[in-house]
């Protein structure tokens, strides 16, 4: 168990270091002179030099990297070129909205996918199964930037039940969460179906039926827990992806989260903020995946034995 823990955490740290390097290099792949791109071509030479010096771009690369890394260790992400505020404050302002949206979307996704996947597995090769899987294909094929405006049209403009965009009342989370949730539910439902189907053929399921358990009880308490592991991994990946993939949905709904911050920063050519947003989202992604793996090992004792 300790061996598994240590290797898994070490590899996550290594990935973290790699992500920091890539994000650091992001500003250097800007074609031409990054300072010119940020200030515009008509900027005064003195202004350019000031910015170049402020960003440390006049130093050798390894020194720049060290300053960047040192700053990260002290939670210093620099200041925004556009608003002049500390980037850390900007991130802290935006994180709750993204977290809130991600969690509600996750609830929507599980709420939709669990019944669909279970029903499809138990009633395999029936119209119920085909219907559920048809919905899944439908949900997977629709891009978020189409689903979002469609939901706005129906839910906000025709029915008037929800606000069009922004984060105003309690119900403003419904439409973006539905957009993200249905896309996630589609993949999740397929996973639940195949995972449960695999377990349904096991000996202990026959035993459960033989001792007279009802179908619902057998599926919910005997099949589902055993089918949960691959589902959990996928959920971890999806939650991680949600925190990053929400960029488009946040833009559609003007939801004041990290994704929107990043798009705004790209449009304002505020590259330090772009770097910080990418870093923040990627670190979260790595952490969520690490936690999923650890949870996996904790839930399934068989993994601990194989790793020692």
């Amino acid at each position, binding site marked *: 168990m300790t061996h598994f823990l240590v290797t898994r955490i070490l590899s996550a740290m290594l990935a973290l270091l790699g992500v920091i390097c890539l994000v650091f290099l992001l500003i250097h792949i800007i074609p031409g002179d990054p300072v010119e791109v940020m200030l515009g071509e008509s900027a005064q030479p003195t202004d350019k030099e000031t910015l170049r010096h402020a960003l440390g771009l006049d130093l050798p690369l390894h020194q720049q990297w060290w300053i960047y890394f040192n700053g990260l260790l002290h939670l210093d992400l620099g200041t925004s070129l556009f608003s002049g505020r500390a980037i850390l404050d900007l991130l802290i302002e935006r994180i709750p909205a993204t977290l809130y949206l991600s969690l509600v979307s996750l609830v929507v996704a599980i709420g939709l996918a669990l019944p669909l996947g279970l029903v499809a597995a138990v009633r395999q090769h029936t119209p119920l199964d085909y219907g559920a899987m048809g919905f899944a294909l439908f949900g997977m094929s629709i891009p978020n930037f189409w689903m979002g405006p469609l939901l706005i049209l129906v839910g906000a403009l025709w029915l008037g039940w929800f606000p069009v965009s922004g984060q105003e009342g309690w119900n403003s989370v419904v439409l973006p969460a539905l957009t993200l949730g249905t896309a996630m539910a589609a993949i999740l439902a397929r996973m639940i179906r195949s995972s449960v189907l695999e377990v349904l053929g096991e000996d202990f399921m026959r035993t459960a039926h033989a001792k007279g358990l009802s179908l619902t009880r057998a599926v919910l308490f005997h099949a589902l827990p055993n089918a949960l592991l691959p589902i959990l991994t996928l959920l971890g990946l999806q939650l991680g992806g949600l925190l990053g993939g929400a*960029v488009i949905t946040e833009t559609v709904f003007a939801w004041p989260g990290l994704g929107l911050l990043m798009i705004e920063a790209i449009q304002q050519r505020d590259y330090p903020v772009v770097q910080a947003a990418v870093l923040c989202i990627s670190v979260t992604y790595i952490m969520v995946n690490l936690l999923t793996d650890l949870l996996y090992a904790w839930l399934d004792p068989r993994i601990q034995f194989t790793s020692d």
Partner: protein
Amino acid sequence: MRLWLPLSIIAAWAFLAILNPMFSLTPDAIDLTNILSPPNLAHWLGQDELGRPVADRLISGAQTSFFVSLCVVALGVSLGGILGVSSAYLSGWVDAVFVRIVDVMLAFPGLLLAIALAGALGPGIGNVILALGIVGWVGYARLARGQVLALKHADHVLAAQAIGAPPWRIILRHLLPLIMAPLIVEASFGVAGAIIAEAGLSFLGLGVQPPAASWGA
């Protein structure tokens, strides 16, 4: 029958995308007197917020979307394939470093990295292809590496080594042809993913620039 329907849909779009210069389309023709008009005989799908014909834009957008996604997949498969195969065949520290690099690339949520890259490189079709290609090669590389690891001790490879074939020849002649099938399957999923990703980037304003049409813009 099950294959026939999707194939014909794809063929129809490919046909429209390739042959669209023959239809004398006017995807950029602005007609401010007919903004947001509903479908009619002259404009089958109506007109958009600048009075441009939506049907024409859809068809010329197909060209952009197909072109970009095919380029992205071609870039990804060739880069990923070559790197993955070489890494697995050479093994040793090259392979160890390679696996670490792949791990780091996979530590990013895919679309996020593409958005950040496209944002840094600046908008434009070429940069979208580059950004999506840089993000996309990792999957093919991993697949190719896994396949080669399984094949590398096969008898015909040993035989080739025994008669003194150089590594590049073994890779090109004895390994690549055998791993093409899984790579092609993966690539066909990749085209679908690239179309959606391109549309997403164009939707965010990072892809094709106005007035050009794409399925995302």
